[in-house]
């Protein structure tokens, strides 16, 4: 040692400085501790919330949607599991992918693309155990009869598929049209809830079920699939509708509207030119045309405005002032009584009757057959009929003249009714005035105890007899020789007025008349009523006959 050291001085120097150093450390550690206190104690709730948000995912458990059955308990609509694989659109760097999926589920959905896969592929992909591919299953609706019932059953929609979905976006189905929509509350059931624990890359580690889902209720309909299929087959390629119902209960046993659509892809199969999404059963209106003649006759008989014996002379037109209202038969029917008037569908007879009764009486008669009310059938968005009520006539631009009244008497003019309301009128005609609730869901049946129409029995008999002769010798004589008895009335609704009969053949297809048929069978104690409307084609009688033939063929077996 070169020189003696002053240990005491050295100690004093280091001691002072050491105090400073240690105090700095103590301060630094107090700062650290207070920061920890803020994070862990004061903001605990906030951070715990964030942590939960990151490592858990709330998921709905989809309830099984209720099934829809036909009258013979065959399934019409049911849920089926569909398999979906979602994969990143771009090959992302693993770290980036993990961060994205962990941070923002919304963002991640942009980076993924989903597609439906077969169950076998699903199992295969599952086997890869690849974290980047997210596999999901969800329930989709399957329709056993395809497009044959699409206007009745409707379809369901899904919320969009989010590969990393939280609570909001789910595969929840909701009914959009038809029975699916009308009974959506009953069919949809109640979803359950479960919580997934997920890791940073989004893989599910654990699942905890909070509540189970409750399946929706099944719906049993009154539809006979065979009849429905037959009607769809007959109407295929035409625009129109066939409605068959049981006049003793109001149960719809078949109701077809064509053209129809694919209930699995309603939007894709949309054909706006032919309005295939339009439900012609409840949402289209047509002039009822001559099908109203038995109704007016019945009530005019009841009110003694006419009698069966009354005869008129028909020159082929009805003259009001100097305006001629032409009959469909240019040369006239000659001497016409009520029987002949309905049998041959004589327009002049009803021009005269309508003129005599006046529009208020005609509207009253229409109301008695419930044309002024919607049928309240269990289908959504039923359209209202257009009836020329006093209120309507006052508001009508161009006013209301006798001419309007006269053509109202043959179901033309402003008058426009839905096929379903025509079906109800046919039911009333068939069951002598019992207004049963029209329904598709069996449990919606409500039988009327007393008739709403007070008409003497003899008048019913007169009209029923006349209507049954229509199908033997009258305008619907195609039915002649059937193994069953049938009463009915044809109609042809003019779309475009023409002067000469020959002109009809020059009309464009969409300007030609609609053909209508209403009827019931058998004539005594009818058990089936039918309404057929075919747009721009004279096929209503032919189709109705095929339908009734098929009906009796099936029921006799």
């Amino acid at each position, binding site marked *: 040692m070169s020189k003696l050291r002053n240990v005491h001085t050295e100690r004093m120097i280091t001691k002072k400085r050491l105090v400073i150093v240690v105090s700095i450390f103590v301060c630094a*550690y107090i700062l650290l501790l207070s920061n920890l206190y803020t994070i862990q104690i004061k903001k605990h709730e906030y*951070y715990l919330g964030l942590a939960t948000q990151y*490592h858990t995912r709330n998921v709905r458990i989809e309830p099984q949607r209720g099934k829809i059955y036909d009258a013979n308990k065959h399934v019409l609509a049911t849920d089926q599991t569909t398999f979906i694989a979602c994969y990143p659109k771009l090959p992302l760097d693993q770290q980036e992918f993990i961060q994205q999926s962990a941070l923002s589920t919304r963002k991640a959905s942009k980076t993924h693309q989903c597609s439906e896969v077969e169950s076998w592929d699903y199992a295969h992909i599952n086997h890869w155990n690849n974290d980047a591919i997210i596999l999901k299953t969800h329930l989709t609706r399957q329709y056993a009869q395809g497009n044959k019932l699409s206007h009745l059953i409707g379809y369901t929609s899904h919320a969009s598929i989010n590969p990393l979905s939280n609570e909001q976006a789910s595969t929840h189905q909701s009914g959009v049209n038809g029975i699916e929509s009308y009974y959506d509350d009953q069919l949809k059931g109640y979803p359950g809830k479960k919580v997934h624990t997920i890791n940073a890359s989004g893989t599910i580690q654990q699942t905890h079920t909070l509540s189970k889902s409750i399946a929706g209720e099944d719906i049993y309909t009154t539809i006979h699939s065979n009849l429905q299929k037959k009607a769809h087959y007959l109407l295929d390629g035409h625009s129109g509708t066939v409605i068959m119902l049981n006049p003793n209960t109001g149960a719809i046993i078949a109701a077809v509207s064509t053209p129809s659509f694919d209930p699995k892809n309603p939007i894709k199969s949309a054909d706006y030119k032919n309005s295939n999404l339009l439900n012609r059963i409840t949402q289209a209106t047509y002039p009822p045309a001559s099908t109203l003649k038995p109704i007016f006759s019945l009530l005019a008989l009841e009110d003694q405005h006419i009698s069966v014996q009354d005869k008129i002379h028909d020159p082929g037109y009805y003259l009001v002032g100097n305006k001629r209202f032409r009959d469909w038969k240019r040369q006239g029917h000659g001497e016409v009584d009520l029987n002949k008037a309905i049998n041959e569908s004589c327009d002049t007879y009803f021009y005269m009757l309508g003129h005599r009764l006046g529009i208020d009486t005609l509207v009253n008669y229409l109301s008695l057959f419930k044309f002024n009310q919607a049928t309240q059938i269990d289908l959504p968005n039923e359209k209202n009929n257009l009836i020329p009520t006093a209120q309507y006539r006052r508001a009508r631009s161009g006013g209301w003249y006798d001419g309007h009244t006269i053509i109202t008497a043959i179901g033309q003019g402003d008058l426009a009714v839905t096929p379903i309301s025509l079906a109800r009128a046919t039911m009333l005609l068939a069951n002598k005035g019992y207004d049963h609730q029209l329904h598709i869901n069996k449990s919606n049946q409500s039988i009327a105890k007393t008739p709403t129409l007070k008409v003497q029995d003899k008048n019913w008999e007169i009209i029923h007899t006349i209507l049954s002769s229509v199908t033997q010798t009258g305008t619907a004589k195609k039915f002649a020789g059937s193994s069953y008895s049938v009463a009915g009335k044809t109609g042809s609704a003019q779309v475009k007025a023409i002067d000469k009969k020959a002109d009809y053949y020059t009309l464009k297809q969409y300007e030609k008349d609609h053909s209508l048929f209403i009827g019931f069978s058998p004539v005594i104690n009818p058990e089936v009523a039918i309404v057929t409307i075919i747009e721009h084609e004279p096929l209503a009688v032919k189709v109705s006959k095929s339908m009734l033939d098929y009906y009796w063929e099936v029921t006799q077996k």
Partner: protein
Amino acid sequence: MSRIRSSRYDHIDPILIYLLLSAILFGFLSLYSADHQNWGLITKQLIRATPALIATAILFKLNKRTLQDLTPIIYTASIILLIMVLLLGYMTNGAQRWLNLGLFKFEPSELVKISLPLTLASIIAKDGLPLKNYSIIKSSLLIILPFILVLKQPDLGTALIIATIGGLCLFLSGLSRMIILSLCALLCISSPIIWSQMHDYQKQRVITLLNPEDDIQHHGYHTHQSKIAIGSGGMTGKGLLNGTQNQLGFVPEHKTDFVFSLICEELGFIGATFWLSLVLAIGVRAILLGYRQYCLFSKLCCISVGCNFMLNAWINMAMVTGIIPVVGIPLPLISYGGTSFVMTLLGFAIVLKLGNPDPRKQGAW
């Protein structure tokens, strides 16, 4: 009487040993949880600790003076290793910090954290106190050389720790106030220049610290996730092995640099406070042992090792809790990673060797 009864281990401080053992056990517990209940990490950590044990055995055979005489060699060796890192270093995360030695990776900047204070202590002790001007200049050069080499890697965090530890030795030896104040003034004036010389990612980390919620998807992600884990732990924590954020992989680097977030999440504020107390106890015990020494070399060595330990631990925990920007400093004794663990143990081995709890018994110098 006492002389007769004292054994040859009498000059080793038992309190520091107990404290260190508890810290190591605590660390193993955290690693066990961090590794999803596997013993793998702990086994590896223990295997890597064997060089430290061998070095400790050699150290205890050595004379204190021999150690002091060896310091220039150790210092030179660590500088050579630092240069080698820059030349043949192993790249991870955009920085060259490791040397691949075949069996394991070695981080020479950790070695400098020990060798620098030893060398400085040896020089200052030789020249005696109060500080001579030439020993200040010599020491400054010895500090600046490794500082620049580490900065080149680039590893700003470790470079600053090295400068701080070096400066601490000079400060304890009574560096004059004039020099300290003028250094501070110089630092303030030159701060814009330093900022412009910083790497983009370093600047980004500072910016992120100032606006933590700004960009949690990218630059703020680490701190954001770590704060969520810590905050969700609450007072008592979620229980060992039950920390959702760490166990499910939301906190990145939860086995190494961010292991403190796992402690906070699973053991809560209570566990974190326990660990902080343990760190302070170990650091203060080492400083206290140093303070008691009459030998200036021993004194400076013990104090700087204790301070180095507390500084590293503080920087790591401050980073994990979002007080300072993210820097690659592991939590000593706990973080998985060989060099830091070995060097920390070696540092405390030196403290145990030089820090006689009762120097008067030994006949002082």
